[in-house]
């Protein structure tokens, strides 16, 4: 699903953000990406959805390679991915339904197919009764659910979540995490960047830890000198 081969990303002003990173996330897998702020987690995610290209090395996502993907092909890749952010990135002047429908419209879904799909997605994320609410009328957890519903519009093979619970309280975080688990259980791979070590420890999923631009730990490939976190 995702393969990083000796990927280095260097920014002209801030220097090396990722250094010689190699890892693989399989189809249907759930993996956490952890590490302190500025460690390189978001850079990895941006490289996955090809917002950035590596300075050296290669990123492969769903059969598309960073080395030869053309700019006009990136939308095709993004339609196979779902992306969720800490700040939800909803359009404030549109209702929950309209936010989800918007993603379907811009990807060319036939008009008549949109309302039933929006209804199904709202039900899936537990917001069937909040379709006509504007984002400001929803709690943080509910807004993130709308964002997740929007990320699911194209039935993605991979869901990328960049600190999805960063702005949420404990209860909402648990709800969002359960939703991501359910999505994963239905076959969608999930790559989730998080600071929430408690959440990571409580789960059984794979952990990839990044620090100062380097992958310092991968629970799928434990090193003898660095045992995995106790709860994993």
């Amino acid at each position: 699903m995702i393969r990083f081969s000796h990927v280095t990303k260097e920014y002209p002003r801030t220097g090396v953000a990722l250094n010689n990173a190699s890892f693989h996330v399989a189809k249907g897998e759930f993996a956490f990406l952890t590490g302190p702020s500025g460690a390189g987690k978001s850079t990895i995610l941006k490289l996955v959805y090809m917002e950035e290209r590596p300075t050296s090395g290669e990123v492969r996502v769903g059969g598309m390679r960073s080395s030869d993907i053309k700019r006009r092909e990136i939308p095709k890749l993004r339609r196979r991915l779902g992306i969720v952010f800490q700040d939800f990135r909803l359009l404030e002047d549109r209702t929950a339904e309209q936010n989800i429908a918007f993603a379907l419209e811009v990807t060319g879904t036939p008009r008549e197919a949109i309302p039933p799909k929006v209804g199904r997605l709202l039900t899936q994320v537990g917001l069937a009764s909040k379709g006509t609410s504007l984002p400001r009328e929803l709690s943080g957890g509910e807004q993130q659910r709308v964002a997740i519903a929007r990320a699911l519009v194209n039935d993605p093979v991979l869901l990328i979540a960049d600190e999805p619970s960063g702005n949420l309280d404990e209860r909402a975080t648990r709800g969002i995490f359960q939703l991501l688990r359910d999505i994963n259980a239905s076959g969608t791979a999930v790559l989730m960047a998080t600071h929430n070590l408690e959440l990571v420890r409580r789960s059984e999923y794979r952990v990839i830890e990044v620090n100062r631009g380097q992958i310092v730990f991968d629970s799928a490939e434990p090193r003898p000198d660095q045992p995995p976190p106790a709860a994993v």
Partner: protein
Amino acid sequence: MRLTLREVSLGLRRAPLLSVLSVLTIAFSLFAFGLFGLVALNVSEALKRVEERVEIRAFIADGAPIEAVSAAVGDIASFPEVARVDIITPEQALARARKEMGEFQDVFDAAVLPASLEIRLKPGYRDPRTVRAVAERVKTYSFVDDVRYGEEWVQKLYNIRNIAGATGLVLGIAFAGVAVIIIGSTIRMTVLARAREISIMRLVGATDAFVRLPFLVDGFVKGVVGGLLALAMAWIAYRLIDQTLGIDSTFFQSGSAALGVVAGGVIGLLGSALSVGRHLRDV
């Protein structure tokens, strides 16, 4: 297209002040350009009127055979540069002189003035070189005593026309450039105001063409509306100048006016294409 139009109308409704400001900025930029265009048009018309007075006068020798003169008139009229040839008899010359010059008021004997051929040239053939060449050819007729065409005056007129043309071209390009920059910057504000929406569209897999289309339509519509406003303002300015200063001036013909409005739309479209293109490259 339905979605594009909906997004354009949403954009207008969501930021009405920005939309009005954009249209007004476009309108005033095009108005300044239009005013310059009006000045250029009227200067050009005035010069054209003066140019129409460029003529070659060939004085006919006394006793010249009328058949030879008539044949020469037909011959000269067939020159490609010549618009018309008239024979001015001494009587007609005297009548004209008495009308135009006070000192001829007391002259009644037409014999004091020679007959002449009055040769007018077609537009595009009134430059000093062509006028001189035609004059030289006319001079070769045996019955022609002398040829006059105000060489110095034709040269001066030609210089003025060239200077006016070059100044008009340079100023026109400068005004158009300033209008494109101002309009581009205005549309860039609209693009920046919708940056979040653009980033979301791109994240969910919208193509660049899809993202760009509503902005192009928006820019074109604003350009056309701005162009119409600019045309209305230019017309009001023209009427005011016409009435208060009493100058017999000319306004754009309907074809040129329509072209100006379409140019507004095209500038809006180009400004949008540049702004949104730059934004898409940057994000």
